[in-house]
């Protein structure tokens, strides 16, 4: 038997002994727990697969379905209790959610309303323009349109800016065939006469301008006269002797050319306006006939310039 030196401890002596160490065992607890673990999981997976198979094959009948129904019935009170406990919170959530959704819906509806309103306004504006263009087309295609004239259609680009301005600017000029002193009409009647021409634009002096004089004829009584702006700024039919008869409501049209030497600028038959009042005084030589123009002179959107097919000498 070996004797340990005095300086060495008893534990060191044990470690140093020649006793054979036992071979490492495979840790039975570890191996067992891993086996149990895997067996449990495998069993649960197999049971789950079996349940799925049975439930899938007979979803509405069978013992498993009955068990599931009973289980569901048993769980129902707990579910109801949970639902009731959560109800106030759910109500609060729904309240704030509805406020949020209402706000967003309100904003969306406002945006839609703005878009629809803009479209409606645009449509109404277009409808007015279409109406005017239709009347203009009707005039151009009608039998009253002078045969030896052709129409140059043009958009109005600027309107009379005040009571002292009696001109329009149109988006058609000499390049389109517009000439100086060409009569200008809208769908309702005579508008004026071209007083200045540029290549792409032209200026139209309106019927209400003091410098404009138009030979006119009453289509009902065939009385002739001269339409121009009177002292009060209104249109009048002048030069009608008192013994002739003009009635309120009579329509006036352009009289056209009678003298080949001095051709009229306006062809015969363009509607000018309607007689709005007729007065006669003892001192005046002529009747005082006031005329309301057919054409809206302050805001025509589209007009046609009547260009003679043959150039006058």
């Amino acid at each position, binding site marked *: 038997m070996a004797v340990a030196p005095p300086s060495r401890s008893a534990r060191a002596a044990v470690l140093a002994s020649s006793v054979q160490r036992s071979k490492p065992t495979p840790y039975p607890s570890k191996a067992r727990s891993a086996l149990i*673990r895997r067996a449990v*999981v495998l069993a649960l997976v197999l049971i789950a697969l079996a349940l799925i198979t049975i*439930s899938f094959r007979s979803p509405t009948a069978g013992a498993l379905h009955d068990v599931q129904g009973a289980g569901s019935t048993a769980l129902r009170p707990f579910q109801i209790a949970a639902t009731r406990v959560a109800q106030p919170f759910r109500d609060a959530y729904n309240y704030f959610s509805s406020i949020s959704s209402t706000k967003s819906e309100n904003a969306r509806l406002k945006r839609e309303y703005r878009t629809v309103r803009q479209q409606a306004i645009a449509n109404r504006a277009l409808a007015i323009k279409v109406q005017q263009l239709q009347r203009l087309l009707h005039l151009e295609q009608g039998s009253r349109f002078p045969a030896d004239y052709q129409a140059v259609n043009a958009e109005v680009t600027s309107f009379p800016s005040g009571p002292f301005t009696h001109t329009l600017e149109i988006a058609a000029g000499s390049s389109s065939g517009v000439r100086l002193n060409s009569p200008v009409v809208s769908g309702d009647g005579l508008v004026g006469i071209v007083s200045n021409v540029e290549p792409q634009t032209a200026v139209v002096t309106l019927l209400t301008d003091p410098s404009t004089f138009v030979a006119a004829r009453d289509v009902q009584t065939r009385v002739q006269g001269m339409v121009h702006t009177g002292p009060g700024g209104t249109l009048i039919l002048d030069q009608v002797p008192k013994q002739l008869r003009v009635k309120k409501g009579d329509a006036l049209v352009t009289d056209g050319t009678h003298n080949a030497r001095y051709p009229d600028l306006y062809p015969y038959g363009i509607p000018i306006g309607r007689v709005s009042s007729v007065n006669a005084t003892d001192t005046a030589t002529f009747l005082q006939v006031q005329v309301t123009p057919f054409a809206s002179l302050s805001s025509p959107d589209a007009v046609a310039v009547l260009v003679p097919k043959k150039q006058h000498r």
Partner: protein
Amino acid sequence: MTFGDGVKAAALLFVAAVVQVSIFSQLHVFGAVPDVLLVSLVALALLRGSVVGAVGGFFAGLLVDTATLGTLGLTSLVLTLAGYWIGRYGETTGRARAHAPFLSVAVVTVLYQLGLLVVHFVLGESAPAGAVVRSLIPAIVLNLILTAPIYALVRRLLRPAARDELTAEVQLLG
């Protein structure tokens, strides 16, 4: 795991399943539903290991399938595997790490959704992959929000297991 812990774990999963089916299943946030049951199962599996996780997942899934009258065993299968996998993660590496619950919940949320999708697809049921994929990120975020309070609650409910109760991959001798 003691008998008392088992009762507590069962009660926890029961309440979580009922709450999930009755309340949380109706909360749709960005197309996703917060899953309080899954988060509870992850917390339980992390704290009590793979066997408890697998068994808990199986019975929680059974409760859900029973309450919703769905295909019995479908949720059980996926939750069993989820509980087992998280339990193994807790036993081997993740138990002591602070980020373990959050990492586990994020990963399991994805695997759980995809697992359910696959099982539904295999069974020939409706499996809207696009909707599931789109709801993954919101679902992860919602579940991560739930993780901290639920993990703290489960940890308080079930005291951390003694070291010798756990299954360990490495056993010290001597």
